[in-house]
């Protein structure tokens, strides 16, 4: 009786061992897939496709007038939502003025003819 039980035990052991090995492989595949998904989610979306909001010339002229009124050496013109600067300005003042001009939502700021001292 004992010998018979032993003979039944050996095939059962093989079945259990084989099943365990198969499950281990499946788990690994699922883990890899989860890792790949997580990586994709964590990657920041750098570029968006929403259209850029640009102010019209009238709104820009008002904002540019306000922004440049304390910089008499700076001449500013607005055309087709582009701010064109000329004249001269101290470098420290340019670092204050430029962020303000950028916040007015222009299409572009051209400062080729602006001398920075």
């Amino acid at each position, binding site marked *: 009786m004992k010998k018979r039980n032993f003979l039944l035990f050996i095939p059962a052991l093989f079945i259990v061992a084989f099943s365990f090995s198969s499950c281990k492989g499946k788990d690994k595949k699922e883990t890899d897939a989860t890792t790949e998904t997580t990586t994709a989610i964590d990657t920041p979306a750098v570029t968006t496709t929403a259209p850029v909001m640009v102010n019209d010339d009238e709104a820009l002229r008002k904002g540019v007038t306000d922004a440049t009124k304390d910089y008499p050496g700076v001449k500013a013109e607005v055309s087709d939502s582009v701010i064109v600067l000329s004249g001269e300005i101290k470098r420290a003042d340019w670092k204050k003025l430029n*962020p303000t001009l950028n916040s007015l939502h222009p299409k572009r700021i051209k400062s080729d003819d602006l001398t920075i001292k």
Partner: protein
Amino acid sequence: MSLQDKYKTLIDAAHQSGIADLQVREQDNVLYIDGSAPSASVKDKLWDVYNQVDPDYKSGDLVLNVNATAATGSKAKVTTNSTNLNIRKGPGTDQEIIGKAAHDEVITILSAPNDQWSLIKTDKGEEGYVYTQYLTPQ
């Protein structure tokens, strides 16, 4: 080299600095970076990075619109060059001047109706709009 490659260090800095509502867009050969900085120092840091990539911002191929909006009730110092700062009835230089804030005076920000103007109150109780460019959050 694309504009996003040219300004990669700036874009990376914006991501790492916790800029809210960050948008990076390219249109008609101009790169637009928009968002809200958690503090004035973060905004200044981004402008420093921009200046390193494009000295004196001469290329004209980037519009960097990252604002550091001060919280309601927060304090800010008047950082004009030396003169007093006009307090106006409304948000615009065409609005009546109703008071002055002294150079280096600390005022309270009540709200910011737009990116350029802030509604403030002085310690003397004067209330009106000033140009945000001349305020430095404390």
